[in-house]
Every structure is written in C-alpha cells, then in structure tokens.
C-alpha cells in the first residue's frame, strides 16, 4: 500500500533478544528488522513484552541475551543517551516536554545554542532556536505562527509533533513511539498518523506500539505480534486482517 523501499539493508536488526528479570523471562529469542522508510507496529496484550523490547533497544534495559545491529554493525547501549547519540530516539507517552518553554527551547533542551552579545557576553541564541524549530516543524507539515508560545498552548497532537520534531532535528534515524495515539481524540489521532507517514517518507524507520488496530493498519508496513515474551507472529499488513492479528495476540 505504500511506495517506500521494502528491500533495502536493515536500519535496525534485533537477533534473539532476551531479557530476564530474576526468574521472570520478559522477552525470549525476539528477532525483528526495521528497514529505512518502514513502519513496524508492535502489538500484543498487556505484559506481552512490547515495552521490554523497546526499552532493550533504546538502552534503558541491558538485554540478557541476543544482539542488536545498527546498519549492520553490532551495538550495545549502556544508557538511553548512547542510543540517542546513535540515532535511536524514543518518544514516550508523556512526551517529556517542558510545557512552559517554546518549541525551539524544547528541541534544544539540554543542548542550547549560545551566541555572544557584543562579542563577549554569552547569551541563549533564541533566534537560532526559533528558526530551527520553524524549519523542523515545517518538515512535519506543522505550521505555527507564534514560535515563542509555550508548548502548553498546543493540542495533544501538536505536542506529539513537537516531540517528534525534536527527534527529527537531532537526526534520529529510528523513532520508537509508545502508544502515540492513546491519549488523543480521533482528529488528533489522524494527525499523528500523518506525522508517521512523513517520517516514513523521509526514509526513517519507525517502531510503534499501539493497541489500536485501526491505527496499525492505517500506517504500518509490517506488524510484529508478541505474546508472553515471545514472537507470536509477523505479518505484512497488506497480507493480513484484523481477525488474524487478534487471534495472534490472544493465542489459540
């Protein structure tokens, strides 16, 4: 259904990933790939291991076994910051935005650009932040006339766009999104879906967790279903149905 390349070299490859918490095996022998311009949905019931998987990929957890390859090179991340530096950005449900700051200030939070006033006094370069924010948000087809407004002024879908924009600005190649549409109304959900399509068109890889099959079918290329920590199945969206996915999720 989408014209993105499906047969390129994988951006991200996970081989036989496992994660134990004491005696509990939250994830067992999980393998998957994400190619450039590809959207992979992770589905599964609560406790199926979706969150464990993305946390192992994004450096929050250290996997107990298995390997992660980024553009063919084996990697391991001690912290989420290391994963981010390598271009894997996770966007959690709470978005992690400072509501009282502008879009630009949020994009640059923790890495603020400075300029020198009269050649001596270092000052925040607000103009650079605003310009970068405007350009980045335009990439996502998000146009806003007041770049100095705090992000609390924006709606849920727009704030999602800001969080995605931050990842895009810092050149994230793989975006992991945890339930990006869960807290939104229907029109806002549609906007987030279109944002994901933008990312796809830019050749980035997207992994997104969702409970909403409609969203999954609207935007994904493939779906990976987890059940009790193991892969219950993987399907191309164009070759499966809601019913089949639900069966994979609940088992039987």
């Amino acid at each position, binding site marked *: 259904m989408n014209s993105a390349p499906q047969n390129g070299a994988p951006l991200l490859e996970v081989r036989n990933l496992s994660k134990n918490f004491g005696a509990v095996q939250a994830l067992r022998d999980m393998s998957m790939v994400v190619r450039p311009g590809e959207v992979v949905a992770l589905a599964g019931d609560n406790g199926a291991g979706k969150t464990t998987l993305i946390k192992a990929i994004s450096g929050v957890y250290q996997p107990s076994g298995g390997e992660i390859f980024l553009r063919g090179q084996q990697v391991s991340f001690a912290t*989420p*910051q290391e994963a981010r530096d390598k271009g894997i950005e996770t966007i959690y449900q*709470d*978005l*992690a*935005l*400072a*509501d*009282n*700051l*502008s879009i630009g*200030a949020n994009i640059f*939070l*923790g*890495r*603020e650009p*400075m300029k020198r006033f009269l050649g001596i*006094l*270092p*000052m*925040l370069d607000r103009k650079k932040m605003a310009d970068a924010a405007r350009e980045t948000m335009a990439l*996502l*087809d*998000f*146009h*806003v*006339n*007041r770049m*100095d*407004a*705090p992000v*609390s*002024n*924006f*709606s849920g*879908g*727009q704030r999602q*766009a800001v969080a995605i924009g931050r990842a895009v600005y810092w050149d994230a190649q793989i975006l992991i999104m945890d339930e990006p549409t869960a807290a939104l109304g229907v*029109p806002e959900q*549609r*906007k987030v879906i*279109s*944002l994901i*399509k*933008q990312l796809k068109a830019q050749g980035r890889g997207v992994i997104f967790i969702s409970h909403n099959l409609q969203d999954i079918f609207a935007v994904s290329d493939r779906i990976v279903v987890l059940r009790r920590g193991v892969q219950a199945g993987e399907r191309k969206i164009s070759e499966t149905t809601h019913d089949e996915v639900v069966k994979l999720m609940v088992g039987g």
Partner: protein
Amino acid sequence: MTTSPPTGEERATPHAAEPDTHVAPPADHADAARTWISFIADMRAWLFLGALVIGFELWARIGFNATFILNPFNLQSIAIFAVAPLLLATGQTFVIISGGIDLSLGFIMGLAAVVAAHVTNIAGQSMSPSMAVVVGICAAILVAGIPGTINGLLVSRLRVPPFIGTLGMFGVARGVAFLLAGGTTVPVRNADFAALGNGRFFNVPYIVIITALFVLVMHYLLSQTKFGQHNYAIGANPQAARRAGINIKSHLLRLYILSAMCAGLAGALYAARFSAGAAQAGEPLLLDSVAAVVIGGASLFGGSGTIFGTVAGAFVIAVIQYGLVFVNVEPFWQFIGVGVVIIISVLIDQAQRRFTGGRQDE
C-alpha cells in the same frame, strides 16, 4: 481550539486546505485572547505598582496637600526599604521557578550580617578599613554559601522536599547566627562600612546601586543562560529535563547556593546600613520575599516567574508599607494590604492557568 471556525488569516494560509496532513495552528482569535490574558497576568505586579502609586499620590494630595511619589526623599526611602527583601526575593525567584522554596533565606541573611560585622571588625585590626570592608562582605557571602550548600545537598542528593530541608536550615542558621552574635547585635566600628551603607552617589544610595546591578546580573542569569533555561525546564517537568540530559542534581546544588548567596549579600548590606550585625535581621523578610515572587507573577508550582516581575513585587510591598506610614494609617493595615495583594495576584494566576494552561519562558 482546533475545532473553532477558521478566521480570515487562518483561511489565508495555504496549508489549512489539507486537514489530513496539516496540524493546524491555534486559531488566531483564541491566540489573541490568550495573549491578552497572559499579558495582564505577566504585567500584574507592574499594574499593582502603578495603581498603588497613583492611589497614594491622590491620598497625599487630597488628605495632606502634599506629594507622595514626586518627593525624592520618599523615593529614596522606598528604594532603601526594598533592598533587603528584593535581594532575598531574587534568590527566591530562582528557587520557586525550579519548583522549590527556600525558607532559610531570612536567617541566612541574619547569619551573614553577623559574620560581616565580626569579620569587618577583626580584619580592621590588621588592615586598612576599606580592605576590611571588602573582606567582611566577601566573608559574609561565602559563609552564606555553607547553609546553601547543605540545602542543595539535602534537596538534590537526599531528595528531601525543599520545604522541609530549608525549614531545618531555617532553624540551624538561626541558632548559629544568634550563637555567633552572642545573643545580641554586633556593632561595627568602621567608617568606610558606614559610608558604604549610607553614602549616596548623585543622591542614589550606594546600596540601591549595588542591588540594582546585582538584580540585572541575576536577570541575565535567569533569562539568557543555560542555567536559567534549565531552571525553567526543571520547574515545569523534571522528568523531561532529565531525559534531555540535564544534570538535575548539580543544578539544584548550584541553585540553593545561589539563593543563599543572595541572602549573604543582603546580610552584608544590612550590616553596612546599620553598622551592626543582627541575627534577626532577615526574620520578617522571608515571607516578604515569597510574597514578592508570587506578586511578581511566579507560580508556587514552579516553571514560571521573572526577575523583573519580582522587582515589581518587591516594590509593591515596599510601597504599601511605606505609603501607609506616609498617609498616617495604623501600621497594622500594612499586613492587610500586602495580604490582599497576594490573594488577588494568585487569583489572576489561577485565571490565567485556566485560560492558557501555562506560561511561556522569559
């Protein structure tokens, strides 16, 4: 807001025609109302200040056939009156924006005043009076940094709530200050110190000039540096700040040292002004400092506030206190006046939150 009918300007943007791929900007009329409410809320301290000055001026003209604000002596008195509360409130502004509060500032100021007095006296025995003043002031500010460091460690490393940690330091600083002072005021015998505290440059008291310069530096720190930017972010969403790679622990440590040093400077200037150090110097000023910050537009929930707002807030309090004395009203009305202004100020803040859901930086 996205469901409201488009205004002319919104229709004019080419992207509004593609609802599916376009995340619409907030409708412009809602934006305008929000801007207007935010403007009133941001400027409320200055509006209060203007109303108070006009009110007292009318009262003075009608009741006493005199001028209130055009009298240079009154202006000077109000400015001197505002120095110590404003210095405390400057540090308090940073702390409150970060989502904390520093209750120990009043007695850190007292401690600093006592230290300034003692050290100036002792140093005066072995060096010139003016050098002794410099040493005394530096000592006061550095010693103030000690309780500030402890506050910072308590809040950042041991995760003690700021209200409790600094309340403990309130008691400790108070006790240490009285012990150092021997339970009494410590007189300073140093003509240069007295000159610093009471001298004038073109009719502007030195301590007012020092305070003004210091406040400008603090405004720069809050509005133009990473430290200030991170302070706003931590106050609004510590989780977001941490994920963005900001070292919250080291930030909070520096923050509480900074606020304590503001109190240190306030104590040193107090000792200069009265040629004496007193442990209770800042006792009544702590709550004034919080009040000045709140009247100045900061939210006690953190994430908003400005130094210039706090300046206006401190002057609102100073004008109420001095003005009521000037028009010969019983001094107890001061408390009522300041209290009413605080309540109105918080009501405006609440109304603004309801309409806009937050505040922008700077």
